[in-house]
C-alpha cells in the first residue's frame, strides 16, 4: 500500500458504528411482510484518509450497511456516530446539511444519472444545495470536478445517454465529490463495467484517495478488486461481520473459514497463485430464516455443536477481528 497511508490507525475515527442492526419489514399495522434481518451486530470505525473494503456475496447485507452508515436508511439497533456526533433524524434540516459531508457512488451506470438533465446540472446540484462554489462560479466548479475524474469541461452540456458506461460512472463520482465530502461510500462502483473499464475506474479511485484525504468505504462482491485499493477489508456473510483486518494479512492468512472459502473460490489467472479450492456445499441460506448460532455453520466444514447453538462474538485475533469459535484452532 502507499506510504501516505502507512499509519491509518493514528487518524481519529470519522465514522463509528457499534452493533449496528437493520431489520426490514416485520409486522407493522400496515405491513405484513416477514422481517428480514439485513444487518446485525456490525461494528466498525473509519477515519479520514482510510479506506475499508466491504466484501460479501449477494444477501450479505453489505449495501444495506453502506446506506446505514450514510444515514440514508435508519438503523433499527446499535449506535452510529459521525465526527463524534450521533446522526440527526432522517429528513431533518441538520440531516440534510450533513449530506454535504457524506456521499455515495452507485453500481449501475445506467441508473446513476437522471436521463432528462445535463450532467453538468446534475453535478452542480450538490454545491447549489449547500451554498458552495457561488463565489468561484458554478461552471468552473463543474469543470474542475470533471477534470478531477478525467473528463473534459465541455462535456457538462451533454446528456447521460451520450456517455459510455465507464464515463457515466466517472460522472457519478464527480457528483459525489461535488460537495467536498469527508466520507464516501462506493457501492459496487465497478461491478457492472467491462474489465478494461473497471481497471480505469479503480485507478481513478486510487488516485482520488491519495489526493482527497477521504474516508472511503468500498463495497464489492469481488475480493481481488478491493485488494489494491483498501487498507483494510471487512468480510460479511448473511448480515453478519465474519472477519475484519488489514488487507494484506487477510488475503495471505485468512482467519475465518468463510474468508478462506471465498478466497479459494475466486478464479485466478496465474496457475501459480491457485490454492486448493474449498467448495462450499449448498447455497447461502435465506436472510428471512438465518441459521441459529454462527450463520455460516450450515456450509462450514469445521462446524461443531457450539457453532450451531452459540453466536460467535467478533473478537480480536492477531491484529484483526474474527467471529469464529474455532479461529485459534484453525490458524
Amino acid at each position, binding site marked *: 500500500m502507499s506510504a501516505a497511508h502507512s499509519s491509518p490507525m493514528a487518524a481519529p475515527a470519522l465514522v463509528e458504528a457499534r452493533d449496528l442492526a437493520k431489520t426490514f419489514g416485520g409486522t407493522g*399495522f*400496515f405491513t405484513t411482510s416477514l422481517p428480514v434481518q439485513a444487518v446485525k451486530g456490525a461494528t466498525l470505525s473509519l477515519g479520514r484518509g482510510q479506506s475499508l473494503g466491504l466484501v460479501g*456475496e449477494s444477501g450479505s447485507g453489505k449495501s444495506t450497511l453502506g446506506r446505514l452508515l450514510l444515514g*440514508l436508511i435508519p438503523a433499527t439497533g446499535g449506535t452510529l456516530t459521525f465526527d463524534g456526533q450521533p446522526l440527526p433524524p432522517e*429528513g431533518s434540516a441538520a*440531516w*440534510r*446539511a*450533513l449530506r*454535504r459531508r457524506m*456521499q455515495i457512488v*452507485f*453500481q*449501475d451506470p445506467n*441508473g*446513476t*444519472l*437522471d*436521463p*432528462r438533465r445535463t450532467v453538468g446540472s*446534475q453535478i452542480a*446540484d*450538490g454545491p447549489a*444545495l*449547500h451554498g458552495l462554489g457561488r463565489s468561484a462560479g458554478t461552471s468552473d466548479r463543474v469543470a474542475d470536478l470533471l477534470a478531477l475524474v478525467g473528463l473534459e469541461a465541455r462535456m457538462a452540456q451533454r446528456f447521460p445517454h451520450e456517455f*459510455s458506461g465507464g464515463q457515466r460512472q466517472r460522472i*457519478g463520482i464527480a*457528483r459525489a465529490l461535488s*460537495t467536498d465530502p469527508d466520507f464516501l461510500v462506493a457501492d459496487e462502483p465497478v461491478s457492472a463495467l*467491462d*474489465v*478494461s*473499464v*473497471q*481497471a*480505469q475506474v*479503480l*485507478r481513478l479511485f*486510487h488516485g482520488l484517495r491519495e489526493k482527497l484525504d477521504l474516508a472511503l468505504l468500498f463495497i464489492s462482491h*469481488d475480493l481481488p*478488486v478491493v*485488494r*489494491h485499493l483498501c487498507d483494510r477489508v471487512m468480510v460479511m456473510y448473511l448480515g453478519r461481520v465474519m472477519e475484519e483486518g488489514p488487507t494484506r494479512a487477510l488475503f495471505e492468512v485468512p482467519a475465518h473459514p468463510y474468508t478462506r*472459502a*471465498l478466497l*479459494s*473460490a*475466486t*478464479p*485466478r*489467472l*496465474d496457475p*501459480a*497463485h*491457485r490454492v486448493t*479450492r474449498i*467448495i*462450499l456445499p*449448498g*447455497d447461502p441460506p435465506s436472510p428471512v430464516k438465518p441459521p441459529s448460532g454462527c450463520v455460516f455453520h450450515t456450509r462450514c466444514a469445521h462446524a461443531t455443536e457450539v457453532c450451531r447453538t452459540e453466536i460467535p462474538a467478533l473478537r480480536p485475533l492477531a491484529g484483526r477481528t474474527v467471529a469464529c469459535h474455532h479461529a485459534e484452532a484453525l490458524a
Partner: protein
Amino acid sequence: MNRKLVMPGLWIGTILVVAVAAPVLGLPDPVKQDIARRLAGPMLGSPLGRDEFGRDVLSRLIWGARTSLAVAFASAFIAAAVGTALGMIGAWKRGWVEWMTVRSMDVVLCFPPILLALLVVTLLGPGAGTLILVLSILYIPGFVRVAYGEVLSMRANDYVEAVRALGAPTSRILLRTVLPNIAGPLLVQVSLCVAAAIVLESGLSFLGLGVVPPSPSWGLMIRGARTTMAQAPWLLLWPCGALTLTILGMNLFCDRLRDVVDPRTTSVRSRPRLIDRLVPGLLPGHDPARDAVLAVDGLTVGIATPRGVVKPVEGVGFHVREGETLAIVGESGSGKSLTATAILGLLPPVAQAIEGTARFAGRDLLSLDEEARRRLRGGELAMVFQDPMSSLNPVYRVGDQLVEAIRAHGSVSPEQARARALELFRKVGIADPDRRLDAFPHEMSGGMRQRVMIAMAIANNPRVLIADEPTTALDVTVQAQILTLLKDLQTDNGMALVFITHSLSVVAEIADRVCVMYAGQVVEDGPVGAVFHQPRHPYTRALLAATPEGDELPTGIGGVVPLPQEFPTGCRFAERCGFAIDTCRAAPVALREVDEGRRARCIRSDEMARLPEAVA
C-alpha cells in the same frame, strides 16, 4: 415532438380547434327549433340537414363537441392534479399515509364506472357540473395508481437516491427529479381518461342522464335520432361518426404517446429483411483440426437495418475437440454470445448467419434445414444460458421441463423419463432430488436453477455443450461449484465444452484453449497457458493487465469498443492500442498462424513475442 405523434395530434388538434371556435364560426343557433323544417335534408345554410325539432345538425354537432370535450378535459385535468399529488405523496411517505392515499382508492375501483356515476346523478340530478364531478372522482384512482407505481419504481433508481444523498428536500426531489421523469406515463393516462370520459359522457347523455336538453351533446343527438331512425337514419350516422372518429383519434394518440414515452412497449417492431444466404465454403479453406467435433469457419452474422446490413460477428472461426474445453472470451460488444446462438440456430429474428460454416459430425449446421437442426439441438448439441431464472419457464415444475427435454429426443415413457430426470438431478448435485423435481423455478436458488439448466443440457449426452456465461449471474462460491461440476461432467462424458465468458480468470481455471474476440472478430487463439503467458495480440495483453490479481494495480484500456456500424476498415483495436502504427489502420489485418496451434490478428505479433511475460 415525435413524428409518430403528428398525424393523431393533428387529428385531435383539428377537432379541438373547431370545438373551441364554435361561437365565431357563424353557425346557426344550435337550440333554435324550427318545426316546419323537421327532419329536413341538406339545404342552404344547413349542409347536414335538420333534426327532429328542425334544429341545424352541423351546428349541434360542433357545439356538441364543445360540451363533450369540455367535460372530458376538465375532469381529466382535475383527476390528474388530485390523483398525481395523492399518488406521489403516498409513494414517498409510505406507512399510513400510503394506506390513506393509495389503498383507499381501491374502493372507487369496486364500482363499475357508469354505476357510480348513476348513483351520484340520482342525488345531484343530471348536468354538466355533476358529470365533471363524477368523472373526476372516477379517474382519480387511475392517476393515483400510475403516479404511485411510477414513483415507487423511480425511488429505486440510483439517481433519485443520489439527489436525496446530496441533501435535497423532499419537495424538490418530487418536483424536480421525480415529476419530470413520470410525466410521460401521466400524460398517457390523461389522454386515456379524456377518451374514456368522452365515452362515458356520451353514454350517460344517451340515457338522458348526462347533459340536460336542449344543450347539444353527441349522446343526446343519438338519443334523439334513435326515435326517428326509420325515417331519417342519417341523423343517427352523423353523431355516431363524430363520436367514433374523435375516440379513434384519441386512442391512436394514446397508443403513439405510449410508444414514444415508453419504448419497451413499442408495438412496431423492426421486421427482418430476407438476406439470401451465400453458398458456404466457396473457398477451400485450410483445415486446422481434422479431429474437431465442432469446427466453425468464416461465420458472419448480419443484422438488416434501415442503413444496410451491419455485421456484429464477422469471419469468426474456431474448433473444439472431444473432451476439450474451449473458452471464447471477450468484453461486451465482442459478439461472443451471438456467435454461440448462431451455431445453434437460435439467433433472434432480426439477426441471421449470412456466411460461413459450422461443421458438426460431418454436417454444416448453418446450411441444415430447421427440422434437422431441431433434432440436433438438445440432443447431440446442447446449450446453457447466462440467466437461469429467465431461461426456465416460470409456470412449469422443473422436473417437467427436464422430462420434456428427455422426451424430445427419443421415445421414452413418462416413468422412464422421470427416472432419468432423477438420475440427472443426482448427477448435477441437487440435494433431495425427488422433491426438487416438483419445485417451480422461483422456489430454487440461482445456483440450483443453473444446475437444472445443466441437467437439461446433458440430458441426452451431448457431444458438444455450449455454455454462454453460465456463472456470470452467480456468487463466487456458487460459481466455483458450477465450474467444478462442468469439469466433472466433461471428464465423465468426454463431451466438448465451449465456454463463453468475459472473465480471463475463469478462462484460466477451466479452459484448455482460448479464443479471444474483439469487435466481432477473433483476435487471438491458442492454448490458454501459452496465450496468457505470452500474448501475441496487444488486446489480449491489455485484458490481462486489466484483470485485478496480485499486488499490482490493474491497468485499464482507454476508449470504448466500436459499434458494429462503425467498425473501422483497418485493425479494429488500433484506436485503443498502445502499439498501433499507421499501417494498422490502413487495411484489414488477417488472422494468421504465429506459432504451433496459435493464431493472432496483429501485424506486430512477432514483436509482441519479445515483450516481458504477461502473467508472471
